[in-house]
Structure formats: structure tokens, C-alpha cells
């Protein structure tokens, strides 16, 4: 948007589309549902700690699904957990996004072959927007994935149908 780069010296009026402003506001405050499941959750915690500081992207962990925009599924999803994930996803308000972090939630990861109790990919129960590969992905990779999600939000239209 470049809104912040420009100085507001001459006038206090900026002309843009309503959609542009709304998307800008939305992508800068993607509240995250802390959904730490396994090892990847530790990297997610590291990403929100002082070194990587995920909060500068406006990502604030919230405990309740009702207040969240993005669900970061970090870790192995088991069959016992799968139905819970689905239910929590359904509780989130619309325009919700899912970030699948780590090979486990992408496709079952190291447990793809013999894991009789591992869900082979969280996309079997909920739709995923961005996949982050790695076992575990570095915190930088999580930030990159987040930026990809922001791009997606920016290109969306609230008035028209959700971009496929």
C-alpha cells in the first residue's frame, strides 16, 4: 500500500479503495490461534519470543478460536485430535485462514508410513491456505509463510466471492 512510506505533509487525505484499506487492516492484525501440538510448537514459541518476534507482523496469540483469524497448526495431528481440530476450526469467525506448519501437518511427516494413529495431513479435515515445509521449519520459515498468507489476504476481495 505504501501508506506509511508517504508523508502526510500537505493534506490528511489519502485516496484508496475501501477494499484496500480493509485488507490492509486485516493483514496487519492476523490474530493467531495458538495451536501447539508437537515439536513444531516449540519453534512456534521461539518465533514469538525475543529473537524472531512474530508480533511485529501483528500476530498476537489468542486462546479462544472466536477471536482469531489464523490457525497455525504446528505439529502432528493424530486421529484422536483430528475431530477437535475440525470443531475448533468451525468455531472461528469467517475469513479464517489455516497455516500448516511442518511436514507432519502437511502430509504426516516422518510418520507417514507406519503411523497408524497419525492423520496424514491436516488438509484431510480442514482446508489449508499455506503449507510450510520442514521438520521442524525454522522460525524464519514460519515468518515467510506468514508473509505469503499476507499476500493472499491482500489480493482478496471482500465484496466479491472469495478468490479461489
Amino acid at each position, binding site marked *: 500500500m505504501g501508506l506509511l512510506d508517504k508523508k502526510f505533509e500537505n493534506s490528511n487525505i489519502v485516496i484508496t479503495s475501501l477494499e484496500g484499506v480493509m485488507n490492509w487492516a486485516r493483514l496487519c492484525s492476523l490474530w493467531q490461534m495458538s495451536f501447539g501440538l508437537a515439536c513444531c510448537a516449540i519453534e512456534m514459541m521461539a518465533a514469538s519470543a525475543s529473537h524472531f518476534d512474530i508480533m511485529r507482523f501483528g500476530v498476537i496469540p489468542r486462546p479462544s478460536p472466536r477471536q482469531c483469524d489464523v490457525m497455525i497448526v504446528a505439529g502432528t495431528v493424530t*486421529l*484422536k485430535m*483430528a*475431530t477437535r481440530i475440525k470443531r475448533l476450526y468451525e468455531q472461528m469467525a469467517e475469513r479464517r485462514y489455516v497455516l500448516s506448519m511442518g511436514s507432519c501437518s502437511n*502430509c*504426516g511427516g516422518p510418520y*507417514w*508410513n507406519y503411523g*497408524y*494413529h497419525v*492423520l*496424514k495431513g491436516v488438509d*484431510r*479435515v480442514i482446508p489449508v491456505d499455506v503449507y510450510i515445509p520442514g521438520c521442524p521449519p525454522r522460525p524464519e520459515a514460519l515468518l515467510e509463510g506468514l508473509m505469503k498468507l499476507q499476500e493472499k489476504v491482500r489480493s482478496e476481495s471482500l465484496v466479491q466471492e472469495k478468490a479461489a
Partner: protein
Amino acid sequence: MALEPKEIYEKLHAAFPDISIEFDETVPCILVEPMKWKTVALFLRDADDLKFDSLMCLSGVDTADGNLVSVCHLDSMVHRHKLTVKCIVPAEEPKVESVERVWRTADWHEREAYDLIGIEYVGHRDLRRILMPYDWTGHPLRKDYEVPEFYNGIKVPY
């Protein structure tokens, strides 16, 4: 004073003449009759020169020849000696006496062995599945276990 497994076996043999207790040199370990195991366990825990006050680990094993084994690794913090005890049961009727009231560690470990291997612990107060969902069928760590195609409408294999 730390005792060797062989000495412990001799003590047990003398104390319980009517319970079948054997000694396996190779491991070394003690094989106890499954349905009399609790009496022996109490003795192991309380006798002054044995004092096995902690159960390190309890595992179920499927030996793939039609038997299931419940293996206990005992440790004495007082005398600093260790002992392995095995109860071998046939897979068709896998009943072992529970020692959950002797060492409370056994509570969850027995539930786990029941869940994954299918050994039934007689006298356990709360023998439910612990790791797998309650509505799961079968015992996954049996050697002949086959993974189901679907669980609650979710595809399981990759």
C-alpha cells in the same frame, strides 16, 4: 546390600514353594506364574533384604509365537539392585494379575500394555484404553495387527 538376580531367585523360590517361579540365565530374569504374580510382587517390595520400591518400567511384548509377555523392570533405591520379571501368557487368553496397587507406576503402564498389546490385567481398577481413542478396535502393537482403512470417516493410510 545389593543382590544378584540368581540370589533373589533362590530367595523367592524358598519363600513361595507352591508358585511356579523359574530363572532364565540368558537375560537374566525371573519368570513368574501370571495369576500369582501379585503375591510375589508384594514380597519383592516389602521384604527387608529385597526392598524393590520402584517399578522402573512395565512393558508388554508380543513374541510373535503366540505368546504375550508382560515385563517388569524393578529397582531398589535402598539396596541398589535391579531385577527383571516376566509373566508369559498365551495370546488367546492373556490374563496377568495386576500389580497396580503394589506400585502405582503400574497403573498407567498396565493400561498402556492393555491398549497397545492387549494384555488383560486382572484386578486393575480402571483398565481403559489410554493412548488410543476409546472406540478404537484392535491392539496396534501386536505383530499381526492390520491398520484399518478408515477411522470415523477419516482415511488412515497415506
